[in-house]
């Protein structure tokens, strides 16, 4: 296809240039009922899984139908979202922080036709395009990162394990039977673009082998001091390497026992890749939360040190998550988040009930905070 200019002139990049205008202003996109009642909402209620009503002081109501979105969306699918919004919602919709899509209507009689329309749409492969759910004491959509679809440092895929996990947890996306909401998140390496470190259940990609050194090219590709400075455990030092042909090159030496496999060096230097079929896989973390409700926000804790990458459906990972949720559902009190439940019964009991093996990998040995996670009391359970 021929190049089509937008009007940009590469010879004069500053000509008519518009910069620093920021995003479009939020209130351009509000549905009328939102614009009218903003700041004057009285209360809300979840009428059925995936359907909320918010009632305003004016007596106005807005009904929201929430559907699970796939974060990785084509323009064809977005256009279909637009078609639905045009048909039912006067062309308005919003997205949530957790990749759900919300369709809003201003009267109750518009809800059921919208729900029916959304539930009727399926991909050719058979999966739902817009499953209604993700509210209340259930499992909502997984927030996640790019994985193998677009990232240079992942230790696992993102969209694949998310699809596999949500297929397994689908009933809890459509239902509200759990003691409290369960937030599942995935980050494909410990850079944690997805900030999974405060989730009820976190799926985290992790490398287990030190960087593979491309000595021949390293000094040509990288700033050696920058790469060395990037190592949080001081495992790197400058050195000279003799290549097979006898030439001597400047490079980086890795003190392998000091490596925590964070990949920070690889971010600074492409001649130190960590990706490895056997080395890479998944860490499962549990018990985190961000809300201040009842107890303070908590970090997630590592409960499984490693599962292999079992593409395409990661069965060990999804089995483990499903098991944890079933045990939590059966054992926790109403309103108790997964981490609050684990703290109440004790982590020793958590491992027993969830039938998870406690290995030495799960005892913190990273710097000062480690000490505060060891048991400094005689209060424990047999």
């Amino acid at each position, binding site marked *: *296809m021929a*190049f089509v200019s*937008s*009007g*940009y002139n590469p010879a004069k*990049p500053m000509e008519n*240039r*518009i910069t*620093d*205008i*920021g*995003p*479009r202003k*939020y209130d351009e996109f509000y549905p009328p009922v939102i614009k009218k009642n*903003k700041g004057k909402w*009285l*209360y809300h209620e979840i*009428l059925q899984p995936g359907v909320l009503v*918010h009632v305003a002081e004016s007596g106005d109501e807005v009904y929201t139908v929430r559907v*699970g979105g*796939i*974060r*990785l*969306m*084509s323009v*064809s699918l*977005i256009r279909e*979202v*637009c*078609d639905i*919004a045009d048909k039912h919602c006067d*062309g308005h919709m*919003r997205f949530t*922080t957790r990749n759900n899509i919300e369709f809003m209507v201003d009267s109750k009689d518009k809800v059921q036709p919208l729900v029916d329309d959304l539930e009727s749409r399926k*991909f050719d*492969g*058979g999966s739902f395009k817009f499953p209604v759910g993700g509210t*209340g*004491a259930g499992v909502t959509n997984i927030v996640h990162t790019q994985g*193998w679809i677009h*990232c240079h440092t992942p230790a696992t895929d993102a*969209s*694949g394990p998310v*699809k596999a996990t949500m*297929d397994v947890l689908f009933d809890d996306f459509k*239902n*509200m039977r759990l003691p409290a909401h369960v937030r599942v998140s995935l980050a494909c390496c410990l850079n*944690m*673009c997805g900030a999974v*470190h405060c989730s009820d259940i976190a799926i985290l990609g992790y490398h287990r082998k030190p960087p593979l050194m491309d000595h021949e090219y390293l000094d040509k590709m990288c700033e050696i001091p920058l790469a060395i400075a990037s190592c949080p455990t001081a495992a790197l030092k400058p050195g000279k390497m003799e290549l097979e042909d006898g030439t001597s090159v400047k490079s980086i030496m890795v003190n392998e026992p000091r490596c925590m496999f964070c990949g920070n060096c690889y971010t600074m230097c492409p001649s130190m890749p960590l*990706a490895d*079929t*056997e080395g*890479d896989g998944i860490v499962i973390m549990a018990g985190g939360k961000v*809300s*201040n409700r*009842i107890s303070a*926000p908590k*970090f997630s804790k590592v409960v499984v040190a490693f599962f292999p990458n079992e593409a395409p459906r990661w069965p060990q990972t999804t089995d483990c998550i499903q098991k944890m949720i079933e045990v939590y559902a059966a054992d926790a009190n109403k*309103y108790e988040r997964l981490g609050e439940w684990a703290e109440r019964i004790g982590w020793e009991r958590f491992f027993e009930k969830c039938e998870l093996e406690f290995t030495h990998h799960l005892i913190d040995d990273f710097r000062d905070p480690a000490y505060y996670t060891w048991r400094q009391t005689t209060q424990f359970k047999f």
Partner: protein
Amino acid sequence: MAKHETPLLDQLESGPWPSFVSDIKQEAEARAKNEKGVEYQIPVDVCEDLLGILELSFKHGRTHWKHGGIVGVFGYGGGVIGRYCDQPEMFPGVAHFHTMRVNQPGGKFYTSEFLRQLCDVWDMRGSGLTNMHGSTGDIILLGTTTPQLEEIFFELTHTYNQDLGGSGSNLRTPADCVGEARCEWSCYDTQALCYDLTQEYQDELHRPAFPYKFKFKFDGCPNCCVASIARADIAFIGTWKDDIRLDQEAVAAYVGGEFPPNGGSHSGRDWGPFDIKKEVIDLCPTGCMQYADGKLAIDNKECNRCMHCISVMPRALRIGNDRGCSILVGAKAPILDGAQMGSLLIPFIKVEEPYDEIKEVIENIWDWWMEEGKNRERLGELMKRQGFQRLLEACNLKPDPRMVQEPRTNPYIFWKEDEVPGGFQRDINEFRKHHLR
């Protein structure tokens, strides 16, 4: 007939959850047919090559994307992430596959008109694949070639009045919760503050001048739906100072079973009749509530605004009227020195236009961090390295017991010379007159 066999990915088409594989396939087919006669500016088979390279990653258990090169639009240092695949001969359609981050509107509210416009640009000049949305909040346009970057930017800014978001060592695209737009618990207008600060700090957002990334996030209440407390260098979390508004009649309706507790969120199981003592009074973390003779009483002075009672009885209890936000600083994900939660710097600040007080806090923090922060050191790490006291000094703030969970357990206080009468300079000979060697 698909360009590449994808037997592993094909297994992700079944099952109820929306399949991204089916969606990419549908996009691949739409591009191949091109019923609208789009003048595609990047390879038509980009989606098929993306499936091909992803299948290879599923087979190898390793990514096939290389480091980003330095690509971007003129005058900006962020908003574009360079991406190249490491098998360009096998998958030429994704040989160059750069990402553009587009600054999302507040609350992620859209009209179909605007989304269709973005789709048209991206269909023609990119892969037709997006993330709605990236983890930070941006609309992510996933996959285009270098010559298209300026064209897309020109079209976005000229035709659609829309700018790019942040990446690299700059202010990342700020993000907010749904806020007052559709939530009765929002203690300030998250969208208004998010938008104002985004506009005020456009230079910081587009031109990397910081030691590392810096994030603002805006949560309307302590439930923290955008997780600001866990991931924002500055988290603005709504709160109030006066009394919870209380409607005794509605309390009675909850007790009497007329209203479902917690907004109906637990309807998937029979938890038995609502028990206000067990479900509200006993779970209150400060024990500041009592229920007797059919009346609920709250000792508001002792309340720590955890949101539990309000969440359980939204029709009976409402946030107070004297509202503003708390500011917590220094949260981050684990890289490098372990995860950090935000630490409380300002217990309460009014959120009122033009937000001058808030901007003063932000700029004081930035001045300190830009002066003292090392390359790739987040604010939270600088706080750990230099201590909370330095942050207080930088912000001209007085210490407050609300800023700590507990006072220090060691007495190793770094007294300053001017805090000790007489200073540190003394005469050893004078001392020796009374203390022989």
